């Protein structure tokens, strides 16, 4: 019946033979050290951080206890919630601005650039990760400060001077310095996996470039775009350097609050409460982002 059905390029991808996948002594030699290390020095400290929130400070020393003082004190403090919501809004703002700024670039690189240009752009976008974020932020301060380069240049045109540091604008510049390359990269990778046939089809249906972007590309790449925005939020939400150096520490963000509480008061339990609140928030945001990305309309085609 079957005339030697030609099914040539279908390798039997069982990855590793199933009998070989159960760990043995050989396997434990490789797997266990990393596990022990991360369990002892990553998981345990984070769990201990939660424990610490119930300790007391006695004679300037954190002392084991089981009290909810730190939680009550902080969660009933108006200033904490002010800072909390401000930090949250800053994170959202950074995520939104970075996503909007990045998208045209990612779109261009994904659909209009040659492979070589795209390769070069990817390399260039990775470079900032290996330059000191501290020094880059500091340099922005030099560039944007009252009598810095930008204001000097604008001065020749008869404009300014503008206040660009020690305010939200400065903080935002810092956040973008941190997250923009990553957001472009993540968007680029998600756009690269959009089915080209879909775009062809859209063009054949006389869908204009912009309509194609909004009706075909963005829905297809939704997961990656949401992921990129989520990373932008996580990084900005936890950043200490930008709001300190470019935002002038005032008004503070949660990271600044943690550092202040640790440095000035050595009040570790209280700092731990802030850190736990931050972690819970980040978890909730990640969860919400996942639901949004994979939920209704996630893969409209």
């Amino acid at each position, binding site marked *: *019946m079957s005339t030697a059905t030609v099914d040539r390029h279908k390798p*039997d991808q069982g990855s590793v*033979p199933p009998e070989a996948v159960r760990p043995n002594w050989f396997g434990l030699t490789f797997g266990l050290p990393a596990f022990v290390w991360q369990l002892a020095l990553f998981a345990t400290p984070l769990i201990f951080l939660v424990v610490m929130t119930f300790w007391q400070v006695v004679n300037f020393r954190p002392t084991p206890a089981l009290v909810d003082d730190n939680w009550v004190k902080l969660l009933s403090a108006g200033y904490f919630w002010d800072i909390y919501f401000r930090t949250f809004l800053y994170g959202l703002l950074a995520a939104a601005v970075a996503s909007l700024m990045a998208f045209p670039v990612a779109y261009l690189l994904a659909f209009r650039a040659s492979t070589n240009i795209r390769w070069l752009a990817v390399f260039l976008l990775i470079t900032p990760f290996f330059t000191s974020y501290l020094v880059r932020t500091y340099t922005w301060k030099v560039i944007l400060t009252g009598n810095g380069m930008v204001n000097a240049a604008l001065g020749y045109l008869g404009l300014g001077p503008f206040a660009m540091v020690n305010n939200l604008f400065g903080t935002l510049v810092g956040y973008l310095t941190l997250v923009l390359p990553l957001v472009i990269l993540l968007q680029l990778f998600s756009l690269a996996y959009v089915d080209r046939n879909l775009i062809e089809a859209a063009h054949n249906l006389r869908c204009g470039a912009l309509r194609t972007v909004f009706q075909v590309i963005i829905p297809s790449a939704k997961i990656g775009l949401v992921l990129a925005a989520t990373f932008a939020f996580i990084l900005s939400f936890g950043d200490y350097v930008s709001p300190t150096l470019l935002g002038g520490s005032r008004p503070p963000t949660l990271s600044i609050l943690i550092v202040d509480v640790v440095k000035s008061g050595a009040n570790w339990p209280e700092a731990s409460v802030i850190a736990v609140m931050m972690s819970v928030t980040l978890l909730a945001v990640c969860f919400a982002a996942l639901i949004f990305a994979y939920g209704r309309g996630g893969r409209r085609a």
Partner: protein
Amino acid sequence: MAETLLTLQQLSKSYGPAQAVRSIDLTIEKGEFIAIMGPSGCGKTTTLRMIAGLEKPTSGEIRLRGRLMNDVRPWERDTPLVWQSLALFPFLSVQKNVEFGLKMRGMSAADRRQRAMQWLERLGIAEFATRDVATLSGGQRQRVALARALVTEPEILLLDEPMSALDAHLVVRMQAELIRLHRELGITFFYVTHSQSEAFAMASRVVIMNGGRIEQAGPAKDVYRNPVNRFVAGFVGTNNIMSGRVEAASDGRVTVATPAGRFTAPLPKANTPSVGDQVDYVVSADSIAIGPAGAANTVTGNLVSEQFIGSVVTLFIEGPSGVELRVQKPQRDVAALELEPGRPLAIGWDTANAYILPA
């Protein structure tokens, strides 16, 4: 009398509830070229991997020269395998690839170099000894894989669909090469494939597997000419299979009523059917003639389509009650007939060319 090399006894393999191999029995002799064939997921590759020690049998036994192999680790066996992906070591030269097995056996550098070169010469790729495997063509890489597996001079060579990545014209050349090697070396080749053309071209014995079981095992010609059941008849060659009921069984012939008509076949010697039995009536596509030739069995139908594979044409004909019949003829025979789709066409075959299988 041939010497037994490998026996599989009630060999089974299951992954949780899924049974990949269900209690198969197979005895393989020294020097045999045996092909295991079947659709994907039939358990043929799992069987091969159990022989190589890459999977542990759930139950049953594997014995090599009488020695129980079930718990022998893969590296303690001498059952080299030619992989579907070839799995050459990309960071080693051709020669180092071939030397690998010898190095693992502790052979001195000079000796293994000499041995590797012998095999490279034997397979006609000595000139590439120092080359990077990535720079070789598909056929050359295939030869490296063979040399690497054979260099330790094993008694059995396992081959797991080794030609599935080759171009069609190379497959024929590699088949000739394998047949030559097999004859020269006199060792057992255990060849897993889903391609019947490969299996029938090379193997002295063919095993058809389906759903983890062996459906039929025997010399290639027997399996091709006398399938034991509907699965094998459907899998091997191009057969027309029609369900029907026995109307008469006498004088060495049996008459079967099928939706396409009433046909005759020789009366089987064993399992003789009686009148009223449900059977499958089988006639192979290449034994059907076109035109009223006074054959014992005739059908008139409409030509639906033609399909060309090499120099062979398959005609698809819709017979009575919508039964689809296939006829295979050499291209030049068909060209003279000037067939057109949609036209009625008479076909026929002799009683001797058909057979029946119990349903």
